[in-house]
């Protein structure tokens, strides 16, 4: 059988159909079988597993995994190696559920104990671990069974394969795992720090796969906080290594992985972004990611075209991700990116690509660039990016919506020339519907965009916002469990309540509810920032002509203001004082009566006291208010 099936998928399928697998498994499991026989069975099964995915499915359906795992308990090394080899082949197939490795809790510790038996056990077991560690739970199981201590020595194994698989284990173990990463930095291999071992594996004469995987390990350790971003092994080794992986000389798969890893590495660190932006022409190098399939490949050979097509989406999304990461903080880098050939056109077409991964990455890139005032004013407007963006917002999955709406927030900033056309496209309804989403991120973005839109807006726009949102929804948002939502809603209110006519107009129609909401927030358990924002709203109300009265007639509210004037936090004192200052302002109708009433309530004494405050702003504000009485 063994000789019949080697390299012959058809024969393998035939044997499986004929029911060879259960029989082989039976012989393999019989303790009465000779070791030679059991070993041969494992070898044949291993050969069957080398076939098609369907073969693997059949084997897994016949419960080959528990049988082989059971076989590992045998003491014979040759037999164990045959079982492991078959297990390895089964587990690295995408059709095998990795969970099967973890079903029996004794398996992982047993594999750990077999690890150092031979070169083959090392290679097969590390390869199984590298493929079957997909979730934080898997990481924890392996970590708890001393995976790090057991695998670390294999990094200096004389066998290339063993070293490579061990390295892969570390990359999957460390990914987004602080515990593993923190442990890794303290591991010594033959007296050398693990990070230095990884650095050596990134040397340019090492196989590309090894360089790339070592760079991933260091990237994950860095992102988990185990290595500082300004450590030489990151700044002078990992980063340049990843940039090299993006070069045209590398395979398409490597370029995708390289760009994604690099994007991840430098996402939180502007210094790394700056260095990467001028390393090896990275920004223009990435432009090449959009040139697949190339016109040449289409003509020369069909295989290449197929290959290019397969990777084209991956390449584009990786490039967008990397651009997004590069441009997330530095204005000069953003400029450099937008000036790259056809960049804005590429983003625009990326936003409407069929692949969701590309759309998401494109909108991330757009979002990153939209943090630039200059780009908002120029390239964004020139290329009318708002159009595909609005289209994207109509019917997209949440993760795309979050990015797109966040980008929209920036496009709706007051100085953005895109603001007008977006308003005309009926965006308000859309944003209002976002505020009703279950996702806090979407609610924040929806209300944030409305807030930006309301800033120094026309009366008409403000009225439209209030109408579309509805006071009920507005007040629901004011009690939103998410502080960000609450803050942005208060911000929206504040922007709505600016300039006197608008204040009076809105307060005359919604005064009661607004005053209620303000009261509720001031009485509730909220952060200083929230209360400050609320007091600012109150100060705006106090600036209105008619709206003032809503406060003056509300003694409870006045008491609250008084309370905050004496608060221990200067910011709250300042906001409350501002409010009083607006109420007693001289040149307005009825100012005398208001001054008298507030004097009677003891506000003058407080203001007097505040003129002695140590904070200069507060002191000035109190003095200005006092002058109203003196005039």
């Amino acid at each position: 059988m063994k000789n019949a099936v080697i390299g012959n998928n058809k024969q393998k399928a035939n044997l499986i159909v004929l029911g060879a697998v259960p029989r082989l498994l039976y012989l393999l499991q019989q303790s009465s079988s000779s070791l030679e026989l059991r070993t041969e069975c494992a070898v044949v099964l291993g050969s069957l597993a080398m076939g098609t995915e369907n073969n693997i499915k059949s084997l897994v359906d016949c419960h080959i995994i528990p049988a082989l795992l059971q076989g590992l308990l045998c003491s014979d090394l040759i037999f164990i190696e045959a079982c492991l080899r078959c297990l390895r082949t089964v587990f690295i197939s995408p059709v095998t559920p990795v969970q099967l490795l973890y079903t029996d809790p004794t398996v992982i510790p047993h594999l750990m104990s077999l690890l150092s038996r031979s070169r083959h056990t090392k290679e097969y077991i590390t390869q199984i671990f590298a493929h079957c560690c997909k979730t934080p739970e898997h990481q924890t199981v392996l970590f708890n069974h001393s995976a790090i201590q057991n695998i670390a020595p294999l990094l200096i194994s004389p066998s290339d394969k063993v070293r490579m698989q061990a390295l892969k284990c570390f990359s999957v173990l460390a990914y987004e795992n602080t515990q593993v990463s923190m442990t890794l930095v303290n591991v010594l291999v033959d007296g050398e720090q693990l990070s230095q071992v990884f650095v050596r594996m990134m040397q340019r004469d090492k196989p590309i796969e090894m360089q790339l995987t070592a760079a991933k390990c260091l990237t994950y350790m860095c992102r988990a906080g185990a290595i500082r971003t300004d450590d030489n092994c990151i700044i002078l080794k990992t980063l340049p290594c990843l940039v090299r992986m993006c070069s045209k000389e590398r395979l398409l798969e490597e370029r995708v992985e390289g760009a994604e890893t690099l994007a991840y590495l430098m996402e939180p660190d502007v210094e790394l972004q700056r260095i990467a932006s001028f390393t090896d022409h990275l920004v223009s190098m990435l432009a090449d990611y959009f040139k697949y399939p190339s016109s040449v490949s289409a003509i020369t050979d069909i295989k290449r075209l197929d290959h290019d097509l397969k990777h084209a989406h991956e390449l584009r999304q990786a490039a967008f991700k990397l651009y997004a990461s590069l441009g997330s903080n530095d204005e000069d880098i953003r400029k450099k990116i937008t000036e790259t050939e056809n960049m804005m056109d590429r983003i625009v077409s990326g936003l409407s690509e069929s692949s969701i991964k590309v759309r998401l990455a494109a909108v991330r890139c757009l979002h990153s660039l939209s943090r630039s005032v200059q780009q908002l004013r120029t390239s964004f407007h020139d290329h009318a990016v708002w159009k595909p963006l609005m289209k994207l917002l109509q019917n997209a999955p949440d993760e795309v919506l979050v990015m797109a709406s966040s980008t929209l927030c920036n496009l709706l900033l007051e100085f953005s020339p895109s603001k007008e056309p977006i308003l005309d496209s009926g965006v308000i309804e859309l944003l209002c519907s976002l505020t009703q989403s279950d996702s806090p991120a979407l609610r924040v973005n929806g209300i944030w965009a409305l807030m930006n839109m309301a800033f120094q807006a026309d009366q008409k726009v403000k009225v439209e916002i209030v109408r579309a949102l509805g006071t009920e929804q507005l007040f629901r948002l004011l009690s939103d469990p998410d502080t960000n939502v609450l803050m942005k809603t208060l911000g929206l209110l504040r922007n709505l309540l600016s300039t006197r006519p608008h204040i009076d107009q809105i307060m005359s129609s919604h005064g009661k509810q607004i005053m209620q909401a303000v009261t509720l927030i001031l009485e509730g358990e909220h952060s200083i920032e929230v209360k400050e924002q609320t007091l600012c709203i109150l100060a705006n109300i106090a600036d209105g002509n008619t709206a003032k009265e809503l406060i003056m007639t509300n003694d409870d509210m006045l008491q609250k203001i008084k309370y905050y004037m004496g608060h221990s936090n200067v910011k709250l004192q300042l906001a409350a004082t501002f409010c009083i200052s607006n109420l007693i302002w001289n040149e307005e109708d009825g100012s005398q009566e208001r001054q008298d009433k507030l004097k009677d309530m003891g506000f003058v004494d407080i203001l007097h006291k505040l003129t002695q405050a140590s904070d200069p702003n507060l002191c000035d504000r109190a003095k200005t208010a006092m002058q109203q009485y003196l005039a």
Partner: protein
Amino acid sequence: RSDLALNEQEKDLNQRLRRLYPAVNEEETPLPRSWSPKDKFSYIGLSQNNLRVHYKGHGKTPKDAASVRATHPIPAACGVYYFEVKIISKGRDGYVKYMGIGLSAQGVNMNRLPGWDKHSYGYHGDDGHSFCSSGTGQPYGPTFTTGDVIGCCVNLINNTCFYTKNGHSLGIAFTDLPPNLYPTVGLQTPGEVVDANFGQHPFVFDIEDYMREWRTKIQAQIDRFPIGEREGEWQAMIQKMVASYLVHHSYCATAEVFAKSTDQAVHEELASIKNRQKIQKLVLSGRMGEAIETTQQLYPSLLELNPDLLFMLKVRQFIEMVNGTDSEVRCLGGRSPKSQDSYPGSPRLFNSPVHKASSSQTYQTGIGDVITDHLHFLLSPGFDSNYCNGVSSSKGHTLAHSHKSCPRTMPSPELGVLNGSRGQQTNVGAEVEMEVDHFSNGVSESSSNGFLNGSSTHGIDLEECDGDMEVDSAQSKRQLCGGSQAAIERMIQFGRELQSMSEHLRRERGKNSANKKMLKDAFSLLAYSDPWISPVGYQLDSIRREPVCSTLNSAILETHNLPKQPPLALAVGQAAQCLSLMARTGSGSCAFASVDDYLH
């Protein structure tokens, strides 16, 4: 004290340059080590051993620009060349900080910044632009200023250049560079100061890692070189070469087994090989009298037709008499011939390869260790320090002991003499250069025998075996002619005969300075009470038998119309010659294609 520090820096520099550019022959193409005080515009001032550059012009207009070139152009044999410039001061405020770092050919106007003219290339700090033989720059990298370290790397394989800033590569700046460019820096602002690092200090950028990548690339290119239709003949060709090598050096038993197991015919009678082997053994064990006699017996006309060869053999015989090893003095009461000083049948056995474990697996099958060992020394003419010190004895080789039993001390300064006598300026202890020398000899002296070349390499080995030898010399006391009075008399008599032979030769064949010197050196041995530690004592070293042995061997082979140099040695020599030719014609890839890398 500062001189001391300077020497230290000089040593560092030499060491670093040798490590970075092992393929460069500095006698032919010296490396840049500093800025040239002669090749600069007058507005440039140099200090700190011509490494610091400062601007002393007005700096008002581009007409005030000033540049300086390094002392030498970049040799192609560097493969990859790199230098760094640190900006010490960006110059006085109120000026635009024009400053350019780059390359220029000899003769390019120095009253300009690098990059502005034909065959001139620069990266400028004020705008970060690159200037490629043009007054208009292209956007290239970031700007640079005080405290920044800018590096410039020339790739002489693909003729490109890239810069680095503070250790980060900025990507290709120029392509299609012409050969023989000089490192150049240009300034145009009062107060500007920059320091160069041509290897005096460790570089900020990891240039060695970049070189590693190119070494791998070149080696992969060699490995993948298409062999063509004759593909199937590789093995046969290599077997032929090995067989001919074995025959050449008269490893007859090994040659016989090898020929049999590889199905080859041996192109020389076995008896003839055995004869040569016999003679070689005699020469190598110092029994020159017998060797001459045997040669005359077996090849009657050979020495008659080659009086110079005979003379050389006789001079050696004289030396062996002094040594107490020649049969004529031995029988007069010298040391017992067999027990101590039999130089076994291999001409050279200086190394016991470290790689043996693996190499023996490859070569050994059915042939035996002897071959393995000799193949190995043949194939690795250069060696690490690990190579010597008798590892082979642990493997039970009978070959390894001869060095030990040769009583001598060889203090290392003497080695200089040894090498110097061959008209080379080799640096004792500099393994890398030695290897290079060894190969270039292999070619330049192609008329002489391959063995000769070995001796310079051999010298290193001796030095590294020093420890062993001193112990040996303490064990057995050396005495002139083995300590026998009769032997000394015989030696003196023989010396007279030699003298008259020399006179006879001169009359017959005219002056021969080589012969004259040979004789003079040999006789000089008698001028010292302890010839072994005298300045001419190197002649007593058993290694010196090897050139004699191989010259004789070649002469015998020639009379049989066989090549006097084995094809294998020829091939190695040709490959080495090809590399040095590449260096001269500007093919940088020679830097990463050392013949040694393939001989293991």
